């Protein structure tokens, strides 16, 4: 069982992942699944009609806006970090949570390390599949590292200028 860390109300917990990542050339297993955008566009209607929960995995060059109309039907959007330093998924995360107001889970997958945790949480990620065996406690510490933030983002934290006024 791959480790999944969920962030809820500021607390990180390690959980069993009910979803199965399904590759494009793989037979569809039973249960809740996360599929590629292409597969979702081809088979999504059928999967949803079967009553299971469905997530879509976006590669870093795919833009979250393509899912705008499907978001209410999706349980998870998994955003891929092909490399630690590929920052496109941060924009996708921000667009999903901050602009499109997606209520489901925004999950970080790929080259995902706790050093990115603070940034990911800020742009709206609330689930993480760490590439190493980092624990939920370590993620928690990383997310709480900074007592303040300077700018608005999808997490709704009050930036420094708002703190100063209060």
């Amino acid at each position, binding site marked *: 069982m791959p480790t999944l860390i969920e962030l809820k109300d500021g607390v990180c917990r390690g959980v069993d992942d009910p979803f199965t990542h399904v590759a494009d050339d793989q037979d569809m297993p039973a249960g809740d699944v996360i599929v590629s955008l292409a597969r979702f566009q081809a088979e999504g209607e059928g999967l949803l009609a079967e009553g299971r929960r469905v997530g879509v995995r976006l590669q870093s060059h795919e833009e979250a806006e393509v899912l705008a109309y499907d978001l209410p039907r999706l349980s998870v959007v998994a955003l891929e970090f092909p490399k630690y330093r590929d920052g496109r998924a*941060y*924009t996708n995360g921000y667009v999903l949570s901050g*602009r499109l107001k997606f209520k489901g889970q925004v999950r970080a997958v790929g080259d995902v390390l706790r050093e990115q945790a603070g*940034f990911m949480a800020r742009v709206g990620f609330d689930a993480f599949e760490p590439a190493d065996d980092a624990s939920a406690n370590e993620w928690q510490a990383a997310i709480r*590292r900074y007592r303040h*933030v300077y700018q608005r983002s999808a997490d709704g934290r009050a930036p420094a*200028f708002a703190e100063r006024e209060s």
Partner: protein
Amino acid sequence: MYQYDVIDKEMLADRSAEFRGQVARRLSGELTEDQFKPLRLMNGLYLQLHAYMLRVAIPYGSLNPTQLRKLAWIGRTYDKGYGHFTTRTNLQFHWIKLADTPDILDHLAQVDMHAIQTSGNCIRNTTTDPYAGATAEEVDDPRVWAEAIRQWSTFHPEFSFLPRKFKIAITAAPKDRTAAKVHDIGLVLKRARDGSLGFEVIVGGGMGRTPYVGPTIKEFLPVNRLLSYLEAILRVYNRHGRRDNIYKARIKILVAALGKDEFARQVEAEWAKIGEAADLPDTELARIRGAFAAANFEVLPAQSEAFEAAKASNPAFARFVRNNLKPHKKAGYGIVEISLKGIGDTPGDATSEQMDVVADLAERYGQNDIRVTHEQNLVLPHVKLDDVPAVWAALSEAGIATPNINLVSDIIACPGLDYCALANARAIPVAQNIAAKFKDQDRAEKIGELKIKISGCINACGHHHVGHIGILGVDKKGEEFYQLTLGGSGAEDAAVGSMLGPALPYDKVADAVDTLVEVYLRERHDGERFLDTFRRTGVTPFKEAVYADAH
């Protein structure tokens, strides 16, 4: 000057604690060098040829005496007694031990300093006019916006893993001392006819392998909309900038590929979605603006008797005044430039003792204000003319009164092969050879403004593309050669220099520069700078003279 409040200070403390933990994990072997590399780079710590190099941020090149003394102390305690000021107006220590870095960051944090975002593919230190708040040329104080950008860009959650590094410069004066047009974003503060303030927004300038003078994508952006507009530019870049080739990853490549109109259209479309919610509230802008309120200037006569007397009686002082003292907006004050380009010295280096002297002078005569210029010099922006003789005497004593600002020996040079793992060739000794060639100060003054810029490789840290004379080190079968370019400029008349001809060996470079200068002196019309003459005559007379020997 802007004072850090408890929030700013706690940000630095949290960063320092985080880095201490990361270094401990590295030293214990829990992290490999490969895993540690991106972490140390986020804290300005590079592994260079001989040792670790720590790049300390100096936001918009502004320092107070306490901070400069701390830098001097760090240089003395953890390095070899000096530091190197960079073209990003930061300071580098070249001989640092990894185990010392957490302590150094703590010491820096004590004086509100840090190494945040001095490396990595993030928004780097925003630079601005070193004469800000002192020159009569500016329409308003650009530091207000540099500070707003500092906060907005610090640990930006969305824009810390961009395709490549990202540099912003702000000028508020028509005479551009920031090289705004060769930045990822250059902002030129302007006043509209109705009196309102706005920015001309220039995007996609740059140097490196593919130099560009950036195009203007917005003629007038109301100042209070700055942060939302920057967010729009950065979002378009973060999504669409190339990530497959680091040499094509800067925003200039994206802007050139799309064309400026299409790029501007995409930014406008994104900006419309962002709206005003992403801008700073007026109250915060007012708070920052208040921190840059005018210094306490005395009402003084425009002429200072002590100053005039010293000028009349001391030719060396008079020469310093001619070259290093610039007009101030207040009568009876001047802007003093401190050259870190002593003949035979390493451009941009200052010893700890020299830093202490400058800190003392700023405290005693300069309203506690020190600036770093992108041309790697220091500035005391507010000195009474009455006090300039004393300042000059103290600078002379410390060996930093070289009267060569904007002259041929005021050279920008990258660290080159003496320090840098990327370099093909040395840059510092080339600068030293040229400076030695022009050590006759009468001749240097006769030549007038001439900007020589030297890079040890195509990454162009020495800004050679925008040198009036640019010098690029290349490797030819293991030997150092140098390609000369002429006619570049990073100022308001920005241009990329054009190639003179085949590269020259190391020992011919200073002679070639001497020849170029002789051609200029022969060809120039009254009042023309080297750059003006070159632009009028074209390359031919210069080329003929330099390569005459070869035929």
